[in-house]
Structure formats: structure tokens, C-alpha cells
């Protein structure tokens, strides 16, 4: 279609001045140019569809089957909603894993993310050493979660770890098994995950704070608002776009949680997470492809929330 590609700014305020030239514009773009542009978008798009969206759709499709990965999927493989039935009522690991993801989300949303925002607010001022503090809190962000997991194992390990030794629990024999005890190990790895998450949130929030119009703050000060009031009543509302990004990042991080739990004990014994149940069921000797896909669909459905929030924001700012 000749009209499918035209130079931009049709919808811009100055569109009026472009009207005259617009007709000429598609003659300016040669057929060759148009084909090149289509390839420039088409090739990456094809890869994205093939390796991201096709598997997403396949996950949904496979979740209605009992396919074990051998041979082709036939009509006999279709078992309707049985995977979901079993997942909700028979599979003892599903609800714990679901709960762990919720706890993960709650922890990040109520503790780690606010702490990151708090650090950002504290450091967003003319103050000696602010650069140093920023660098310190930011340091874990560059590290792999695998390394983060290893570093914290050195803290939490029962007899050799720092924490039990420092509190004299090794000497007194009252060891706390931070990573092995299913009642507390989730919180231990959440501390490790937060170590990285806080810096991440801080950096993004700081960038946002820098863009807040300083006269707003001055005006609040003039009106006699203290710093806390100024933040909640003036800065925080102005930061709404960044707040959405931070919320989305927090939610996505909680849903993606996998690495540290896997490193500690492959996601067992208190560290079950939806992401880990998916791989454990479908990519292992059990090879329950259909069942694993059903868990993946649940994870997908939850993820759609933050994804849609993010996309609607993108839409709003572009249009």
C-alpha cells in the first residue's frame, strides 16, 4: 500500500502546513525505500512474534492438553480444564508458590521499593557525599542475581555464615537455618533480593526527582510545608509517571523471581515460586508439558496486569 508509509507528523499541531506536501511525500519515498523500511520492522517483528508471542500462545494452547513432549499433539491429548482443576485443588505446591509470589510482591512493594524511594529523596539534595552514597546503594544493581545469591549465602549459611557467627548462635548451638527453614527462608532471600532492588528503584526515582520543577518545592516551602509534607503533597503527585514505572517494575520483578530461589535450593522447601514450578514440571524428567503450561498461563494472566498498566501509559504519552 502506497499510503501505509508516509513521513511522520500527520497528527502533529503543524499538520496544516504539511497537507500540501503530504501527497508529494509518498512519491519521495521510493518503492525500494518502502520495502526496506518494511524489512527493517518486519525482520525484528517476525523474530519477536516467533520466539516470544508464538510461545506465549502455545503455552495457553498446551495448558489444555496432557502432552508430555513426545510425538505430536493429537486430539486425544485434549483434556479441557483438567490441568487447571488439578492445579487449584490437587497440586499441593501451587497455592504455596502463589502465596510466595504474593509475599514477594508485598515485600518489594511495602519495604524494598519505599526504601529505594526514601533513599532517592534523601539523596536528591545538595549535600556532600551524595554521590558516594548513591554509588554504594547502586553497587548491587550491576551484579548478577547468581552472584547476589552466593554473596548472601555467605551471610546466611548456618555454621559458616556471618550472621549466626556474629550473634553467637554457632557457639551456643542455637543455629538458625536462614535458608533451610521453610518458615523463614523466603524472607532471607527477600533480603538478598531487596539488596539489589532498592538501588534499582533509587536510581530510577532519583532521575525522576531531578526533573521535578524546583519552583514547586520552593512554593511549598514558602507556604510553610515541611519536607515530608512537601514530598507527599507536591513531589509525589508530580512524579505520577515515574511512580507508575516503579510500580510496574516492582510487580514484574516479583513475578519474574527465580534466580536466587533456584540457586539456594532449586525452589523447594519454602522457596516454591510459580516461575520455578513451571520449569520443574515441564523441563525435567516428569515432562508434564501441559501442566507446566497451565501454571505458565496463570503467571501470564497475573503479568498482564502490570503490562497493560505500562502500555496504557506508553499510549497516553505517545498520543
Amino acid at each position, binding site marked *: 500500500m502506497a499510503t501505509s508509509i508516509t513521513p511522520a507528523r500527520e497528527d502533529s499541531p503543524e499538520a496544516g502546513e504539511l497537507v500540501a506536501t503530504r501527497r508529494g511525500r509518498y512519491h519521495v519515498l521510493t518503492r525500494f525505500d518502502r520495502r526496506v523500511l518494511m524489512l527493517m520492522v518486519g525482520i525484528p517483528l517476525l523474530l519477536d512474534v516467533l520466539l516470544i508471542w508464538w510461545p506465549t500462545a502455545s503455552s495457553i494452547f498446551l495448558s489444555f492438553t496432557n502432552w508430555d513432549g513426545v510425538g505430536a499433539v493429537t486430539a486425544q491429548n485434549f483434556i479441557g480444564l483438567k490441568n487447571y482443576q488439578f492445579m487449584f485443588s490437587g497440586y499441593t505446591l501451587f497455592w504455596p508458590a502463589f502465596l510466595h509470589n504474593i509475599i514477594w510482591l508485598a515485600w518489594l512493594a511495602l519495604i524494598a521499593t519505599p526504601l529505594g524511594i526514601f533513599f532517592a529523596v534523601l539523596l536528591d539534595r545538595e549535600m556532600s557525599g551524595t554521590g558516594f552514597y548513591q554509588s554504594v546503594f547502586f553497587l548491587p544493581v550491576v551484579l548478577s542475581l547468581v552472584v547476589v545469591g*552466593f554473596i548472601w549465602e*555467605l551471610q546466611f549459611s548456618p555454621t559458616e555464615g556471618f550472621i549466626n557467627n556474629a550473634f553467637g548462635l554457632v557457639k551456643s548451638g542455637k543455629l538458625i537455618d536462614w535458608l533451610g527453614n521453610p518458615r523463614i527462608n523466603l524472607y532471607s532471600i527477600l533480603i538478598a533480593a531487596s539488596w539489589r532492588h532498592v538501588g534499582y528503584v533509587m536510581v530510577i526515582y532519583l532521575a525522576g526527582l531531578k526533573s521535578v520543577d524546583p519552583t514547586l518545592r520552593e512554593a511549598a516551602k514558602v507556604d510553610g510545608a515541611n519536607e515530608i509534607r512537601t514530598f507527599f503533597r507536591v513531589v509525589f503527585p508530580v512524579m505520577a509517571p515515574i511512580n507508575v514505572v516503579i510500580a510496574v517494575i516492582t510487580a514484574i520483578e516479583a513475578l519474574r523471581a527465580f534466580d536466587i530461589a533456584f540457586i539456594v535450593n532449586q525452589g523447594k522447601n519454602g522457596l516454591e515460586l510459580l516461575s520455578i514450578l513451571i520449569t520443574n514440571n515441564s523441563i525435567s524428567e516428569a515432562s508434564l508439558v501441559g501442566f507446566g503450561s497451565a501454571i505458565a498461563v496463570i503467571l501470564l494472566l497475573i503479568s498482564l496486569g502490570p503490562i497493560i498498566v505500562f502500555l496504557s501509559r506508553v499510549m497516553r504519552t505517545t498520543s
Partner: protein
Amino acid sequence: MSVIAAATRRSAAPTVAARGIRPGRVALHAFLIVMSGVWLFPLFWAVYSSLRPISDTVLHGYLSWPSGGLSLANYQTVWTQADLPYYYVNTLVIAVPAVILTLVLASMVAFACTQFSWRFNLVTLMIFTAGNLLPPQVIIVPLYRIYLNTPLPMLGSIDIGKFSFPLFTDNTLLYDQYIGIMLIHIVFQTGFATFVLSNYMKTISKEITESAIVDGAHVLRIWWNIVLPLCRPALAAMATLLFTFIYNDFFWALILMKTGDKRPITSALNNLQGEFFVNNNLIAAGAMLVAIPPILVYIFLQKQFIAGLTLGSTKG
């Protein structure tokens, strides 16, 4: 009234700051110093443990002063016996082409979608952005099957010393291959990079592209010779960020590779945990060695890294 108050306050503030004894500031610094200590401690502890000979910690426990001195012996052991250099190369073989190709693909999409308006502009950008936000585990089950069922030609291999890089595969499949890991990184990260680069390119005046077209330049030329050079800061930031992301990734290689020798360094570290890292001192040394490249990025490219992170979140 308030104007006067502002004026007096503004003039008062510097003198107080100059005196430098505001209790608020002192408390703030005290708090931040304590928190910095808390933040740095795990890393310090890992470094400290990695420098202590195992004999020393066996005898005195981990919570003790170094009686036998500190040494790099653990690093040496990990480096040589666990074949660590080998795994760095595995990571580089995957990460370097992946970063370059991701930037090429993403900048093409961003260029076409921001410099020209066409019907599916926004939809395209949304497909890429949403794809990158999906948890990888949502797609892993079918992806694993795709990898097991995608045939690739075996065209021999490039052998350099002990390294052998198959072209394109050594088992006729996409599964368990460098190229397979590279591919999924490229596709996954292209979503992110497209989002960031298109935000950046939106700030470039379209008149540049328009006048270049009027002058008869091909779109490929405009992309490569005009728009990409203007995006250099964004490209540098993204290259830094993507390299760190891909270097740090654990999940894809864990699932889509099975041969231990081919694994990138992060998955290798996990693999070595049980079989090779028999004590915490070696684990610490291994973790620190794996952390060195990101820490170098942190030291030398922190600005780029942060720019990459914030470009993706504060604009657009």
C-alpha cells in the same frame, strides 16, 4: 507577605549551611553512613572470605581475624581448576554478538517507527515492549520445545585452542548451542532496546530525515549515516546495559543448554557450586571472579549504565 518570607529564608539558608552544624544534616549523614555500611558489608564479607585460606577458617572459624594472612590462593584455585577463563569466553561469545545485533535490530525498528508514521506504528512498539515485560518463564515451555525441534545446519566449527565454536550447531539443533542462547537474548532484549531507542529517537527532529529523503538519500543511509550517529549516547548506554544484562543472565542458559562446557559464566558458577566449590572460601572467590566484569562496568561505565536504566523508565 510570603514573598518576603521566601526572600528572608533564601538569604538565611546559605549562612546556616555555611556554618555546617545543622542537627538535621548530621542525623541524615549518620543514617546514610550506617546504611552504606549495611549495604557494603555483604560484599566486603565475600571479599574477606575469599582472601582467607581454608586452613585458617577451619581452625579459627569465619568470624576471626586473619591469623594466617590473606592470600589470593582461592582465586588461583578457582581460576585454574574450575577452568573459569573458559566460561568467560563462553559468555563473551554469546554476549558480544548479541549486544551488537540487538542494537542493530532495535535501532532499525525504532528508526522506522519514529521517523516515519505508518499505520501500525504504535502497535509494533507495543508488541516489542510487552514482549520484554513478560516473565521469561511464561514462554519457556514452548520455547524449549521449539529449540529441541529447530534443525540447524552443521557447518563445522571454529577451533581456537581448547575452544570450539560450532557453526551453527554441533547437534543439528538450536538447543544446547551458543547461537540458541544468543538468539533468545537478541529477541528478548530487542523489545527493551526498541522501547528505549524509540523514546530517544522521538526527540530527534524529523526534519532531518525528511530533508534527507528530499535530497534523495536511501532510508538505509539515513538510518546508518544520520540517525544512528545522533543516537550515539543512547547506543552507548544501551550497549553497556545490555552487555551487563546478558552477562548476568542465568535463566536462559540454565534451561536451553545442557552441556556444562558451553555454559556462560553465571550458570557455570551455579553448576560448580556442588561439585567443585567445597567450601565457602572458594564459593566467595568464584562469586567475586564472576562479579569482576560487572564491577568494572560499575567503575568505568556507571554513567552509561544509569543512563540506560533511566532512559527506559523516565521518558516515553
